[in-house]
């Protein structure tokens, strides 16, 4: 009896010792600038990991997800990355900010740790040192070019103004949008940089009005866009100008901040909306959110879904390769192609990656905010036809 107990204890111990560990590290802004999006994103990563553990998604592998606040500070992002990779032997890194990801590019290339940033900046996957960086959905540049295509189809020759965040995140799409506009026969008449301290946008909007601008494209976070929309409402410009924006401009955050001024805002994103209850991905989001006692605002946020998508890609890659090493994750991610595409149900199209394709869910939809503040699809899932021509990836 004693021998049996000792043997079973030994067996348990040796099994525990043999169990491999997969560490997935996230570093982003839970506090500080852009934390309105970052906190929900972090919650999504954390909760999906818990869900994967509860479902035993990785049999024989212990999943360890570490979520850390870097306060949108690149130095903290670097320290977190070094800790995850250098000390915890991380299988994958889930990033967040544009600056932090760009600064880490050469290091990521050196250590060969697959990285899924929360920033959909095209520069993250452009260039020879981007072999291990994968964008979960289409880039901001492609989202904005899709909006230009929409305008060109509807109103050829229309005058468009671009309002971008004064950062690499904001500026990156400007050149691509200009090139696309030229090809599509619409005019970019003004490009203005607006940051988070835009408390009065009267001058900006009057400038657009006098230039005959009919469409205002935003590449920003929801806060500055909400301020512009509220000022446009005050100046009775909402009927004269159509406001539009890329992924981080819209969603619940915008309607919460701008109120009814957000009505009719057109938004480009690859994610399904919280109200699309028939979608399996959204059902899963609700289920996981409720299981983790998240607040309704968090579960409704598209960034909660975004965090889940990033975590799900990394976990699926480990599941496919059955190898929790960084090389295993790379192999798993690059296997998500053709019939083996990954479809967790969070986005309007499947996630596809290969050694050459580093953009996951490439399909996107344009959605418009209705009078209740909910975004409804005005197009089906689509890809920009012109984007590969204006920005061939290096």
């Amino acid at each position, binding site marked *: 009896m004693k021998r049996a107990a000792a043997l079973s204890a030994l067996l348990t111990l040796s099994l525990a010792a043999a169990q491999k560990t997969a560490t997935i590290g996230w570093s982003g802004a839970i*506090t500080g600038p852009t934390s309105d999006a970052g906190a929900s994103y972090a919650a999504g990563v954390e909760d999906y990991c818990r869900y994967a553990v509860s479902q035993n998604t990785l049999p024989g592998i212990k999943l360890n997800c570490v979520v850390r*606040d870097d306060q949108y500070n690149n130095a903290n992002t670097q320290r977190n990355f070094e800790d995850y990779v250098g*000390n915890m032997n991380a299988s994958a890194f889930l990033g967040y900010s544009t600056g932090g990801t760009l*600064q880490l*590019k050469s290091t990521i290339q*050196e250590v060969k740790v697959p990285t899924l940033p929360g920033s959909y900046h095209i520069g993250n996957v452009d260039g020879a040192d981007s072999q291990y960086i994968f964008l979960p959905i289409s880039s901001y540049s492609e989202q904005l070019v899709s909006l230009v295509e929409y305008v060109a189809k509807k109103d050829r020759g229309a005058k468009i103004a671009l309002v971008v965040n004064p*950062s690499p995140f904001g500026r990156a799409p400007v050149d691509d949008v200009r090139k696309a506009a030229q090809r599509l026969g619409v005019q970019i008449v003004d490009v203005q*940089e607006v940051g988070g301290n835009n408390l009065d946008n009267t001058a900006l909007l009057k400038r657009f009005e006098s230039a005959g601008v009919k469409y205002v494209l935003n590449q920003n976070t929801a806060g500055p866009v909400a301020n512009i929309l509220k000022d446009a409402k005050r100046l009775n410009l909402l009927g004269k100008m159509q406001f539009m924006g890329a992924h981080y401009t819209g969603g619940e955050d915008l309607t919460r901040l701008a109120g009814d001024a957000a009505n009719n805002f057109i938004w480009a994103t690859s994610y399904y909306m919280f109200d699309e209850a028939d979608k399996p991905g959204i059902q899963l989001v609700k289920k996981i959110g409720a299981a983790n006692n998240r607040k309704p605002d968090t579960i409704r946020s598209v960034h909660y879904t975004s965090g889940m998508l990033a975590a799900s890609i990394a976990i699926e890659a480990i599941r496919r390769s059955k190898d929790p090493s960084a090389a295993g994750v790379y192999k798993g991610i690059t296997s998500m192609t053709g019939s083996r595409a990954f479809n967790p149900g969070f986005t309007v199209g499947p996630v596809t990656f290969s050694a050459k394709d580093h953009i996951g869910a490439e399909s996107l939809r344009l959605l418009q905010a209705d009078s209740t503040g909910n975004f409804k699809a005005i197009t089906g899932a689509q890809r920009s036809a012109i984007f590969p021509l204006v920005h061939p990836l290096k």
Partner: protein
Amino acid sequence: MPASRFTQTGNYRVRYTQDQTIFATYAEQLSLLLLIAALFALPLILPRAWFPYLTQIVIFSVAVIGLNVTTGYTGLINIGQGAFMGVGAYATALAATRLNLPFYLAIPLGGVAGALIGTLVGLPSLRLKYLYLAIATLAFQIIFEWGVGHAPLLEQGGVIKPPTPQAFGVKDSFLNHNVFWYLVSLPVLISLALLWRNVLRTRHGRAMIAVRDNDRAAAAMGIHPGRAKLTAFLIGSFYAGVAGGLFMYFQKGAVIEDYSLGLSVKLLAMAIVGGLGSLPGSFLGPLFIVGLDRGVELLSQSALLGRVTAFAEGVDVASALRPFSFGMAIVLFLMFEPRGLANWWRLTRLYFKRWPFKF
């Protein structure tokens, strides 16, 4: 008979030249040499995980010495030290990428760029004092961020990545990155600290202190206050430029977010906590602030605090405690120890110097 230069416990200086020596005793010299040797030996003793923080402490110490030159020793409030670091960082990045200069030439060039811009920014100090000068330096911080954000040459604030540096046949890589930059930054800090200690006992150094204490009295004694102020800006921003160059390499690229107003405030906090107008304070301030940040992070991971869920969704204890502890440290030091940690250092040294006697 003069007291032994090893064992003397009091002040036996009888000439001005003796008063100007850096070290009063051989014991002081020896202890400094031992400390430096110990600092160089740290990579052999401490785990790699310590070096991201130690390197930050070393680099920030260089910048804080510079801030002490302007604010601590000359009395010119400077809220733009982060921007001067940024000038040095971008100049270093451009020198490394456009001129293909190795890091040991690019970093001093960053210092020179910082010094030139710093002197220009210092020009209002000829007319302005106190809070008004502080606003002028703050204005430079804003102009710097805006200027970089609109300069295509500087990637509009995006990342300028320098080529991977190499020293003595060792290439900077992921595994040795932090130790590599610790060992590069440490000699820079030691040299610049010694340089400043020497400048301080020259005519220029004494003029700065005289201007800080009373610029009219200094002028009456034949000191040119304007020249002294500009010299302070020149030296202070040179130090910031060098620190910026080091930080740029340490961060693997120049990006505007690293040199925001937040950094200037952090450097000022380090100078206050360390002790304004004190060289040891320039090391103790960064040590305290970086250590506090790390300490709070470790504390939040402890079994007790790790379970606290009183904050907004997703916000952990470290996120909540970091800014709180940072603010509290500054307030408490200003209230209870305005002379900063340097005063504690002085008292400790005095205790051991006179031990076992108390008076």
